[in-house]
C-alpha cells in the first residue's frame, strides 16, 4: 500500500465515522422534527412509519389550542428584554475594567464569576418568597429581573475579553481629540467590537430562552415561557406526541439557528475567556 492509498483510506474512515457520530447525536432532533409532521396515530404506531404524507395539522392545533403564541411571546419578551438590560448594564462595567483597571479589577472580575456559581436551588426559597411578597410571582418582570442578574456575569466577562483585544492606541487617539466618554464608547468602541457584542447578546438570549429552573418554579399561567409550555406536555393527559413534537420544534428552531450562527464565539462566553 503506497502513501497515497493510505491517505485516501484514512480520509474515508474519518469522514464515514464523523458523519455516523454526527447523525447519531442529531437523530433525536431529526426524529422530533419528523414526528411533528405525522398524524397523532402515525406518531404512535409501532413500527414507526418512515414514509408518510406530511401534515401540518399539528402546527395548526398547537397554535389554536395550547395558546402557543402567548407562551412564545413570553419567551421572546423575557429573553430579549433581559439580554438588552444585561448589555446596557454590562458594557459600561466591562469598559471600565478593560480600559481603566485598578488593583482590584481582577478580584472584582473573579468575584462576579463566582456569583454565577451559586446554585439556584440555594436561593429558591428566598427568591420565591420575595417574588410572592412583591407580587412579582408569575410576572414577566420577575423573570426579566432574575435572567438579567444571572446572565450579567457572563455578559460582562465576554465583553471584557473582546474589549481587551481592542488596540489601546485607537482609544487614546480619540481621547486626544477631546472625545467625551460617551462619544468614545458610542462612536469608536461599540462599532469596533460589534461582532463580539452581538455574539454576547446571542449567548445571553440562548441562555435565557432555555432557562428552566426559575421559569418552572416562578411562573404559572400568566408569564410562563415555552420551557413551561413544553413541561406541561409531560402530564398523562398531554400525551400527544405529534403535537408535543410540533410545539417543541417551534420552540427550539430559532435558538438552534442562533446557536449555529454564533458557535465559534460562544466558547469565549461559556468558558469565561479561558478557552478562545
Amino acid at each position, binding site marked *: 500500500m503506497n502513501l497515497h492509498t493510505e491517505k485516501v483510506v484514512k480520509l474515508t474512515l474519518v469522514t464515514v465515522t464523523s458523519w455516523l457520530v454526527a447523525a447519531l447525536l442529531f437523530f433525536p432532533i431529526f426524529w422530533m422534527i419528523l414526528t411533528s409532521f405525522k398524524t397523532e396515530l402515525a406518531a404512535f404506531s409501532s413500527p414507526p412509519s418512515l414514509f408518510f404524507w406530511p401534515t401540518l395539522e399539528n402546527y395548526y392545533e398547537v397554535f389554536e389550542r395550547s395558546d402557543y403564541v402567548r407562551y412564545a411571546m413570553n419567551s421572546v419578551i423575557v429573553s430579549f428584554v433581559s439580554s438588552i438590560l444585561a448589555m446596557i448594564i454590562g458594557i459600561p462595567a466591562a469598559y471600565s475594567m478593560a480600559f481603566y483597571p485598578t488593583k482590584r479589577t481582577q478580584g*472584582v472580575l473573579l468575584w462576579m464569576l463566582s456569583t454565577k456559581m451559586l446554585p439556584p436551588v440555594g436561593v429558591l426559597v*428566598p427568591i420565591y418568597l420575595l417574588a410572592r411578597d412583591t407580587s412579582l410571582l408569575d410576572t414577566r418582570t420577575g423573570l426579566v429581573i432574575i435572567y438579567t442578574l444571572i446572565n450579567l456575569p457572563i455578559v460582562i466577562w465576554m465583553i471584557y475579553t473582546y474589549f481587551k483585544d481592542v488596540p489601546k492606541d485607537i482609544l487614546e487617539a480619540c*481621547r486626544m481629540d477631546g472625545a467625551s466618554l460617551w462619544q468614545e464608547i458610542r462612536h469608536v468602541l461599540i462599532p469596533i467590537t460589534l461582532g463580539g457584542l452581538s455574539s454576547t447578546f446571542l449567548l445571553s438570549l440562548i441562555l435565557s430562552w432555555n432557562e428552566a429552573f426559575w421559569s418552572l418554579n416562578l411562573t404559572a399561567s400568566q408569564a410562563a415561557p415555552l420551557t413551561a409550555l413544553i413541561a406541561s406536555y409531560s402530564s398523562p393527559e398531554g400525551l400527544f406526541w405529534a403535537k*408535543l413534537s410540533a410545539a417543541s420544534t417551534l420552540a427550539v428552531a430559532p435558538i438552534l439557528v442562533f446557536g449555529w450562527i454564533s458557535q465559534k464565539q460562544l466558547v469565549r462566553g461559556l468558558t469565561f475567556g*479561558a478557552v478562545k
Partner: protein
Amino acid sequence: MSQLSRNARAARFLVAPSVLLLLAWMTVPLAMTLYFSTIRFNLTIPGMRNFVGFDNYIFFFTDPSFFAGMSNTLVLVGSTLLITVILGTLIAVLIDNPFPGRSLVRILLISPFFIMPTVNALVWKNLLMNPVSGFFAFLANSVGMTPIDWFTNVPMLSIIIIVSWQWLPFAILILMTAMQSLDQEQLEAARMDGAGPIAIFRHITLPHLARPLAVVVMIETIFLLSIFAEIFTTTGGGPGTQTTNLAYLIYTQALLQYDVGMASAGGIVAVVLANIVAFFLIRVVGKSLAGE
C-alpha cells in the same frame, strides 16, 4: 489633558451598577436562606418562626432521602462527566482534520446543546424511550429483543443518557475550539520522528487539552449539580427517590412540603458543595486572566 483624567474618573464609576446589583443578588437571598435554615418555618403554618439552631440541618442530614439525594447527585454528575469528557475528547480529535462536509458535521454535533431542557427530556422520554411506541422499543423488537422499560427499570441511567446528550456537545464545542490552537509544526515534527497516532495523542494532544479539559469538567460540574428540569419533566424524582438529586430534593421540601427551614438547610448544603468546585474553577480562570 483635563478631558483625559475626567474620562478616567468617570470610567471608574461605570463598574458600580454591576457590582451593586450582583452584590445584592448574591448576599440578600443567601443571607435569607441562612436565616431560614435556623428557624422552624413552614408556609402552611403562618406566624411560626421559632429559632431552632441546627435542628433543620440535623433533620436534613438524618432524613433518608438526603443520603439518596446526595448519592444520586454524585452518580449523575460523575457519570455524565465521564461520558462527556471521554467521548468529547475523541470526537474533537476525530473532526480536527479537514474532511468533506466538516462544517455541517460540526453543526449537527453541537445542536443538542441548544435544545431547551424540557424539550430534550420529553423527546427522549416519549419519542425514543417509551417501552411500547418509542424508537428504541422498535429497534429492540426488530432484532428480537424485549424492549427496555427505561424509566421504570433503569431510571437513573435514563436521566444520565438524557443529560449527557445535552452536555456532550458542550465538551465537543470547547475541545474542538481548543484543538485549533494546537501547534501544527510540533505535530509535523513528531510525525517525522516516527511517532504513531497513539503516541501523538498521549504526548502532544492530551497535554495541550489539559486546561480546556479542566475548564469543561468544572463548568459542567457547576451546572450538573443543579440539574432540575430534566428530572422535573420525566421522573419527578422517582420511582421512590431513585432519581431525586439534591436540587430536586430541596425543591420538593420547599414548594411541595412547604418546609422552608429544612429546604433552606439543604440549600446551604448545595451552596457549600458548589463552592468547593467553584474555588478550583476560579483559580484556573484567574490564572488565564493573569497570563494575558
